[in-house]
């Protein structure tokens, strides 16, 4: 089961390796990991996308909370949240295929950020599922290169009553 965790950390040297080392040392999965500063000086937000059975996820959350430099951990599972990832993808697109690639790009509201005679570079944002869908549709044209940010997520202000 895939879970997205939001981890607020003290931005001290070594904090990334504490978190990464926890995952590698205990055999937990990291699908993606994103780190950036927050509005508060000295505090960074990590968004970690991971997977595992419920008991493993519970351990991951508890182990993260146990790290002295971790301030707060939120598991977005069961919480209404907005989840996004950005991807840049360079697709083979010669004259014959360019129109078709652009049509797909249009359907997924991708931006064209670079173009050459033989390829197109698209910028796409969306949740995990959408990014995967774009990739699978573009695969048949030949994907030359991709760069992805990994997931970031934020709790919705209006929570459904059950949450």
């Amino acid at each position, binding site marked *: 089961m895939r879970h997205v965790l939001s981890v607020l950390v*003290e931005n001290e040297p*070594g904090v990334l390796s504490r978190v990464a*080392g926890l995952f590698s040392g205990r055999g937990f999965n990291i699908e993606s990991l994103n780190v950036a500063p927050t509005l508060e000086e000295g505090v960074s937000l990590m968004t970690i996308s991971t997977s595992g059975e419920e008991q493993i996820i519970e*351990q991951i959350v508890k182990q993260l909370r146990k790290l002295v430099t971790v301030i707060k951990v939120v598991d977005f599972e069961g919480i209404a949240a907005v989840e996004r990832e950005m991807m840049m993808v360079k697709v083979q697109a010669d004259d014959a295929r360019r129109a078709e690639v652009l049509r797909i790009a249009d359907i997924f509201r991708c931006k064209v950020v670079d173009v050459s005679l033989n390829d197109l570079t698209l910028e796409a944002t969306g949740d995990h599922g959408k990014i995967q869908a774009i990739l699978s549709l573009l695969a048949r044209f030949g994907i030359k290169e991709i760069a992805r940010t990994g997931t970031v997520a934020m709790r919705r202000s209006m929570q459904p009553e059950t949450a």
Partner: protein
Amino acid sequence: MELNGARILLECLKREGVDVLFGYPGGAVIDIYDELPRHDIRHVLVRHEQAAVHAADGFARASGKVGVCLVTSGPGATNTVTGIATAYADSIPMVVLTGQVPTPLIGNDAFQEVDIVGITRPCTKHNYLVKDVRDLARVLRQAFYLARSGRPGPVLVDLPKDVMQAKTEFAWPEDVKLRSYNPTYRPNLNQLRRAVEALIEAKRPLFFAGGGVVMSDASEELGWLARTLSIPVTSTLMGLGAFPGDDPLWLGMIGMHGTYAGNKAVNNADCIVAVGARFDDRVTGRLSAFASGARIIHIDIDPTSIRKNVQVDIPVVGDCRKALAGIREIATTRLAEKDWATAHEPWLAQVSAWRTEQPLTYVKNGSIKPQQVVETIFSITRGDAIVTTEVGQNQMWTAQFFTFRKPRTLLTSGGLGTMGYGFPAAIGAQFAFPDKLVIDMAGDGSIQMNIQELATAVCNKLPIKIVILNNGYLGMVRQWQELFYQRNYCATCMEAQPDFVKLAEAYGAEGYRITEAGELESTLRAAFASPHTAVIDVRVEREENVYPMVPAGAALDEMLLV
């Protein structure tokens, strides 16, 4: 007034109540050593940095205070890693101070440079590299606070040489502020009520004490609950001494070399209160068969311990003593709801029958049995001693045949299983309790891992007794080879042993050798009466095994018996 880093360090140590420091000097820490004689802190020069950490660990386990050690950069620092991992596995409060190359050289592969903060990240509770002398006092304050609070553990502080030389105004931070670290001491009242409810409903309840009971000084509460509610008690290796080993409710340690009664009780109980234990694989045996009929109440200060290995019905996060005190308080108001003694009578009769059916025992045949050595030491000392162990058969026989009655009297590497732990730990314990008899129960393999510390013991006139259960084998591995590897005794026979008596004498200690069962008691008595460091080389039966034994992967009640 401005002070240099070295002076600030020592001022901080003094304020943290440190009066003994186990260490080994080197280039990166000369400034600290230069300052040391001007302070009222005793420095104990060990002969290997690993021993400095184990000594600080033994000091901490025996006294309950934070143990402190100081070593130089590079190899000095890497030599501490085993000791740190040992303390981490057993949650021992400790501060490890390591020297580091000057900050401008960090990252340049300088002489005796190593990234010790990186190396020890997974085996410390937390660690720091101090890059600015102005952070030093705050970091040290945090380090001691982290080491001793919550679930205790080792904290490493890496101290670059130039930071020790740099000067700043010294201000002792009165309190520690760490917004990201708030251990839960006070347990949830509702969970405690549920725990009492479960105990009222239980017909076959069992207490299962771990190292957390010792750590949080919860023995009295545990004892009160066990006796008032008529509940038998077992423990882990780390929990030995938390409940008196001569109490009628005591069933012995459980696990791979646990007692028959203890292991049977776990798998037949209908309610288990695990206190400060973490369900290590050596304790549970095959997980799917572990305590399958029991509701489990798990009290631990570390939330990660709960539901890590075993599914728990009533988790209680908090300090063990506070939790047991809370249960006591609630139980006191509900004592009348159950006739505890009568209700548990059939269960107590059952566990008692198991105990008589298969007590801890061994076959006496005229040769010196290692178990008999432990029993003799217990009877000579009447249990009034601090006993450390090495790791392997010596450790298990000590756990089984020495009746521990008080907490902090058994110091042993439970989680990591570090050979070479016992002797330096005994040195630390002797510094904590100069007037107590401190005995290291060793094997001929383990003792050679830190035997150089004889110099430390002799130099400091420590009357430590090292009892070597000498069978000429790495006995526990040999036992596995015998039982599970068709007696393929590969690399377990310790050929070319030193003459331990002469070796002791070469260091200036006393050496004794016992080869006949008839000499056992008199020679041990003579050695224990001596005011000097003594090594007692006891030639025990070579292929004696530790029983009961639960083979790895088997259920707890599938024991091999004597």
